[in-house]
């Protein structure tokens, strides 16, 4: 079953990636440009995940009112440096209330 393949390979891959950092010599990061690229990788990925989760429905772009309103409320909270908890709860509550309306 491919779902199980995915779950098990994700688990093994995640653990080995963590462990690898304790096993490789710290020298591997000495090159500043190498270190910079490793630091920037999650920036690109997280930005892509933000837009994909906010705008995609499978292979379609979807502009869903409550979803975007919840996300906008959260973005405002992030901008005002609200705690993580406030950000996620605000997003969910905003979208849920708009769906009730």
């Amino acid at each position, binding site marked *: 079953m*491919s779902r199980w393949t995915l779950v098990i390979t994700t688990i093994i891959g*995640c653990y080995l*990636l963590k462990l690898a950092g304790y096993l*490789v010599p710290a020298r591997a990061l000495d090159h*500043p440009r190498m270190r910079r690229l490793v630091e920037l990788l999650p920036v690109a*990925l997280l*930005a892509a995940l933000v837009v994909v989760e906010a705008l995609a429905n499978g292979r379609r*772009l979807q502009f869903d009112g409550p979803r975007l309103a919840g996300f906008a409320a959260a973005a405002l909270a992030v901008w005002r440096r609200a705690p993580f908890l406030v950000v996620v709860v605000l997003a969910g509550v905003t979208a849920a209330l708009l769906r009730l309306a």
Partner: protein
Amino acid sequence: MTTGPPADAARSSAVRNSLGVGLAVGVYGVAFGAASVAAGLSVLQTSLLSLLAFTGGTQFAVVGVVAGGGTVAAALGSGLLLASRNTLYAMRLAPLLRVRGLGRLVAAHGTIDESTAMAIGQRSPELARVAFWWTFAGVFAFWNLSTVLGAVGTSALGDPNRFGLDAVIPAAFLALLAPRLRTGAIERRVALGGAAIAVALIPLTPPGVPVLASCAALLLAATIRGGPP
């Protein structure tokens, strides 16, 4: 080496803050449990991911691709690329934690955004170790408990988007991204580039590929001379 009341106060403050981080992350665990079951994974598969993969961003990325109908390769690709930042964290933590043998195997499992951030923010290696282990313990306990709650709740209550889950997930990724955007102009350009690539590819490629392809935004950074990090 300092001991006495100030050290004790610093120690208990580090423990308190670490457990607070765990509690905050717990809410996000409910969202993961719900998203994973809504994507079609079982409660068992969902719980195993939280227990054993134990790295939230990656877990969300993987089930997001599954929900969109993407392939195993695309899900694994974006998930593991995102998890590769934990390798970097481990390299920074290794000299602080100075763990060996079994301790090292356990510490590796706990090497995530929160435990790293709490550890490297401390004044001494001793406090860094306290913050690392307590944050790991707090996040692990709450993340797994809340994953089960979210997964079982979704099985019972149905469509989690009624509760705004579809807005919670991009909001949480934005909250993870925001501190990185504040560190510099190159970060903001890479983020804009990654987002633009992803939007352009959503209608053109299978789910998962837009996130993988966003790495091309790093070419922006590669053309810029690397100053001090």
